[in-house]
């Protein structure tokens, strides 16, 4: 009885091995995709912490613009099973000056998020279920701006093609976490430095929703590339949002004890 069972097990595992052998020999699109993403992730490992100023220019269908100015501090968490911690502090528009946002990113679970409202000096734990909702009325959703972690997506390599002056690998990424607003993202990684150059976002119905283009990449500490200009176009509404980063600083000495609920209530 036990022998029969064991034999079935052995036989079936042989069957599985022989089936997957030809795929292994040729590297499947998902394995190739995962390898490219792994390389992209590895090249950003060890940045420690960073801070940057961000100007967010929102443009509606009629070309009317409004601007938000904020500062973002990010602390890298070396454990790949937890996401990075970040603190976002608004300085413009002036009516939300001092409003701040503390986020502990998770991989597949909802992030932990607290909002600080300076007029009441109140810290509120907020629901982070709303990953697909717009961030301060922009074309960037919370999930677009939250920490990009390797394990958040499943990857599939589609093809290699030219992207501007560079050569790119094109990957299809599907969110592995719940409540995403996307069925898939098509992401262009340049093969020179494994930087994201462009992302097409497809909505829950599978229609093209948005395109994000990354430009003005600069390298820090001879290793870490950061785009200083990110331009998101919503194809369905005609609205656009441009992010312009400045004053990037790395390894500023930011600690976990600086990114706490208590410190959030003391920010300006």
């Amino acid at each position, binding site marked *: 009885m036990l022998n029969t069972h064991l034999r079935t097990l052995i036989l079936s595992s042989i069957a599985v091995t022989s089936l997957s052998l030809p795929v292994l020999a040729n590297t499947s699109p998902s394995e190739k995709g995962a390898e490219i993403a792994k390389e992209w992730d590895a090249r950003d490992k060890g940045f420690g912490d960073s801070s940057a100023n961000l100007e967010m220019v929102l443009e509606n269908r009629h070309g009317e613009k409004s601007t938000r100015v904020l500062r973002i501090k990010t602390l890298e968490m070396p454990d790949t099973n937890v996401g990075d911690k970040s603190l976002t502090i608004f300085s413009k*528009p002036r009516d939300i000056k001092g409003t701040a946002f503390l986020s502990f990113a998770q991989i597949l679970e909802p992030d932990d998020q607290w909002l600080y409202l300076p007029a009441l000096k109140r810290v509120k734990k907020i629901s982070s*279920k709303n990953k697909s*909702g717009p961030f301060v009325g922009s074309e960037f959703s919370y999930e677009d701006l939250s920490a990009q972690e390797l394990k958040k997506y499943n990857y599939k390599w589609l093809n290699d093609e030219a992207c501007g002056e560079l050569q790119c690998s094109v990957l299809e990424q599907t969110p592995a976490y719940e409540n995403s607003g996307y069925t898939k993202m098509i992401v262009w990684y340049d093969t020179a430095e494994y930087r994201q150059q462009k992302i097409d976002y497809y909505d829950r119905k599978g229609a093209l929703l948005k395109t994000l283009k990354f430009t003005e990449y600069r390298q820090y500490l001879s290793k870490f590339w950061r785009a200083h200009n990110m331009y998101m176009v919503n194809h369905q509404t005609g609205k656009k949002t441009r992010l312009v980063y400045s004053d990037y600083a790395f390894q500023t000495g930011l600690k976990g004890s600086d990114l706490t609920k208590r410190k959030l209530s003391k920010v300006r």
Partner: protein
Amino acid sequence: MPRLLRSAMVGAALIINAVPATFNTALADMNLDFSGFIAGDTRIFTESPALSGQNNAHLNPSTVVQLEWNFEWNEGADRIDFIPFARIDPQDDSRTHADIRELNYLHLGDDWDLTIGIDKVFWGVTESRHLVDIINQTDGVEDTDGEDKLGQPMINLGLQSDYGDFIFFAMPYFRERTFPGTDGRLRSPFVVDTDRTYYESDLEEFHPDLAFRYAVVAGDWDIGLAHFYGTSREARFIPEVTGGGKTVLAPQYDIINQSSIDVQATYDEWLWKLESIYRQGHGDDFVAVSGGLEYTFFGAIGDNGDLGVIAEFHYDGRDSTAPATIFDNDLFLGFRATLNDEADTTFLAGVIWDTKTQAQSYTMEATKRINDNLTFEAELRVFSNQPATDPLYSARDDDHLQVRIAYYF
């Protein structure tokens, strides 16, 4: 003026940072930010006032100014904040007032922080009553929701650890609550005369008040435990007759001990909230509880707007010798709409409903940004069915809409 202020602040920085080495780096990254707003408020009262002496006008315009200076150095580890506030109300002298909301020095250490000076602190989680929030006095002439606070002088030390935050307060001076004057709407039947204030303590407003708070985040739970010992922020009122034969109310501030707990559990779209106090010093010892939930339907309005439904209950076990409250046995039902648009449009509407007397107090708040500097706010307050025993009975004819246009800079 900014240059003068800058030198004054550098002077302060010099005193605080006595060590020359620290001082040199301190100067290198000084940063002064000036901001604030000026707003025009108009209250539109639908009915004539119920009480004699109250201004008869249906329109009550007033002007509000709040300025803010943030001066920081040591890469933000040291900071001085100064926030003066003023309102000019041509119809009520008592509502025309100024206050220093904040004037303090703050130091942020690795796992500790220290604030010395006038500051504002909020505790709690519920939306319709702020039961455990006790550090700051209410600026009672500003609004009926009790969310406007007077600056509180304090020394506040916060210690962060792996087991939670330990927060200590010493408050050397008590701030009296503000009340509308004879001409003002939304007041008690007799005017509160703040020149006749009584204190239980012989030290009067100099009684040193102390508070301790322990706050911890445990998974999806945010928990706060606190104790306050000192002058109650709520007054009892003693009717007195003035030399001119007029009846006024003299506020009496007692010494109380209050222990509190506030908890929020955050599970996906659900926020579960509970606040509770145990107070000694106001008649018989009593317990009060506020609790409830907020559930959000994300993306329920248009493509991106969120609709939140809020339900909270309030119980308060205080006896008739304690300061009166409207939240003795009440239910709050409301909703919140957040459109998540460029204009940050929000609505909050609800009713506080006394389950025993059926008294209802309706409230609606809406905000919208007009452009990068201008905002529009509207607040509606409607009082309905208050019996003569209700603290809001005297405001029964004071239903109003307040409209605000604010310019932020």
